[in-house]
């Protein structure tokens, strides 16, 4: 609040409190999710959080749509892996947990080099230049074999670096804590950055770049600094990935990786600090889980993205913050009722969704995997794709299910309306 004194014991607790809680959560997570695959998943989530937040410094904060952010992630990873190998060969006294600094430096350096070109323009021109630079680096990665290691990439052994406090970083749990520590530092740094004079001007550039020029700022300089700093944090994420996989190959700088971070930030919500964090967690989870159960996981991924763009343009975080005014008006009873209607709609939607997925999988099976027989196993069912009955049942479930789902919409709408009216009345009473 602007009219209050800037620093007081209360505001210090308000500022530091959430971070202390988050640190505790990061520390406790491996106790709840102790399996090897869960630890790997958590590590990947930590990396993706840093990467998605760095991307949102451009898209959400400064209004720059980049199609080539993986360049800084990937180059950070490559330089980190080379640095690790140099340290190992030279027996240099550098512990593993400092290697992300190499990624930070590389990301910053290439952010400065490429940013000096691409940030001269905003909007569509910037997006196109970022796409071009992404393709340039991705194709170089297959040509400059000495640095990028060709198809197989560059590998390293994270356990061969100097051991400090008896940590050899062999077990995944140690790597998880290394990633979690860096993730926390990066989150705090990027959060703090938003609340600096520069961070506020980034938002002003996003809103109205022309007006910014008349209050003393060069929008080009603002874009350039934002780009270089976003490169720095992307480089840290890339270095963390290099440590995690002990391998970096050309896919790290590629368009697919650039697309993934865009999806993560957008699905989570770009208008909000927490959005890309949610998106990074969800996208990583989906990527790992879905690719286990279906070959066409990218299709579902794309459908999710389209759904978010169409129905929740502010992302998941946007859906959550939509309820914030109701929460602040203490409309708890109507909120509970609203949540109940959401649950109802969700339950009714599930058969529709299942039928939709079954249809997609059956089409995929018949067109691509027909040689493997006509039956598929899905949702604990064994279905015969050659039987007309199966198809009819799936289509019928889809149609009837959707008709039922459609009827829950007015119920949700009424509950929402009720909550808003309640909150407005509460506001007037106060």
């Amino acid at each position, binding site marked *: 609040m602007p009219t209050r004194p800037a*620093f007081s014991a209360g505001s210090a607790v308000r500022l530091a409190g959430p971070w202390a809680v988050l640190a505790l959560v990061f520390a406790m997570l491996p106790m709840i999710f102790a399996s090897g695959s869960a630890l790997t998943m958590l590590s990947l989530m930590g990396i993706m959080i840093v990467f998605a937040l760095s991307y949102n410094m451009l898209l959400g904060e400064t209004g720059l749509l980049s199609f080539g952010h993986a360049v800084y992630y990937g180059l950070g990873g490559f330089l980190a892996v080379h640095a690790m190998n140099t340290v190992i060969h030279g027996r240099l006294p550098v512990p593993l947990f400092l290697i992300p600094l190499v990624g930070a430096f590389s990301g910053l350096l290439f952010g400065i080099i490429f940013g000096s070109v691409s940030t001269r323009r905003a909007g569509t021109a910037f997006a196109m230049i970022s796409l071009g630079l992404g393709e340039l680096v991705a194709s170089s990665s297959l040509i400059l074999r000495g640095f990028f290691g060709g198809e197989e990439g560059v590998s390293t052994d994270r356990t061969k670096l100097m051991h400090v406090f008896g940590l050899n970083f062999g077990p995944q749990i140690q790597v998880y804590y290394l990633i979690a520590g860096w993730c926390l530092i990066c989150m705090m740094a990027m959060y703090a950055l938003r609340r600096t004079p520069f961070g506020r001007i980034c*938002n002003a550039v996003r809103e109205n770049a022309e007006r910014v020029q008349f209050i003393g*700022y060069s929008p080009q300089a603002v874009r350039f600094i934002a780009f270089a700093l976003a490169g720095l944090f992307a480089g840290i994420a890339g270095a963390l990935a290099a440590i995690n996989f002990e391998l970096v190959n050309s896919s790290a700088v590629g368009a697919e990786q650039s697309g993934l971070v865009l999806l993560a930030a957008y699905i989570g919500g770009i208008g909000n600090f927490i959005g890309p964090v949610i998106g990074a967690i969800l996208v990583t989870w989906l990527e790992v889980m879905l690719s286990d159960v279906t070959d066409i996981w990218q299709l579902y991924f794309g459908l999710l993205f389209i759904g978010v763009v169409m129905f929740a343009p502010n992302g998941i975080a946007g859906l959550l913050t939509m309820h914030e005014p109701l929460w602040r008006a203490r409309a708890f009873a109507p909120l509970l009722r609203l949540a109940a209607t959401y649950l109802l709609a969700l339950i009714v939607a599930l058969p529709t969704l299942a039928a939709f997925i079954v249809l997609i999988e059956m089409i995929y099976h018949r067109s691509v995997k027909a040689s493997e027989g006509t039956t598929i196993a899905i949702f604990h069912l064994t279905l015969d794709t050659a039987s007309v009955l199966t198809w009819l049942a799936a289509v019928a479930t889809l149609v009837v299910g959707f008709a039922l789902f459609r009827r829950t919409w007015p119920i949700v709408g009424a509950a929402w309306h009720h909550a808003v009216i309640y909150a407005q009345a509460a506001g007037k009473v106060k």
Partner: protein
Amino acid sequence: MTAPAIELVDVYKNFGQTSIIRGVSFAVPVGERHAIIGPNGAGKSTLFNLISGRLAPSAGTVRLCGENVTGLAPYQISRRGLSRSFQVTNIFPRLSVWENVRCAVLWPLGYRYSFWRGVEGLADVRERTEAILDEIELLDRSHVPAGVLTYAEQRALEIGITIAGDARIILLDEPSAGMSAAEAARAVALIRKVSRGRTLMMIEHDMDVVFDLADRISVLVYGEIIASDVPARIKANDAVQTAYLGTAA
């Protein structure tokens, strides 16, 4: 003798084949409140764009306090102490009213691109933002997104952003456009207050506002200044009467 705050020497601006500004020369001394009037399409806003760096002149020289600023970018001119408002409201619609004004005080207070210190802890920024919001009577609307303000409030915010940086020279492009008589009267009072000790140049269609505020008036017709004088003599000038005031009355 001190150099004039704003000085234009033989300035031209062409868009393709069309000449919009055709050899304008004039000077506004430091501390003067100077109004530009003229019919629609005379080039008044273009003239402002040339002075503030939004457009570069096709020919001629623009000087601020004796310094040649011809062809400089708007932010370079802004840093030399010139601030301007816009005819069509030009604010940051999704930022709060508070943020709108605060963004405008940062550079002049010396914080520039600093990304190593928090903005909330800067007492001078907070005090100046609060003072400006108080002055434009929007303090109680601080936390509202600027885009949802009423039209008159947005015009006030536009002036607030313009004066926030404590610029020596202020250019106001139709500050009272679209306002009711009561709102315009409040705008005049505000402009009078904030222009004290500064050089003010304004484009205005409301003749009451012009004759009320201006020390001197220039009349721009088809890209040329046809008269530049004190209000009383502008009123009596025959050429002005035919070109502008006559048709308006």
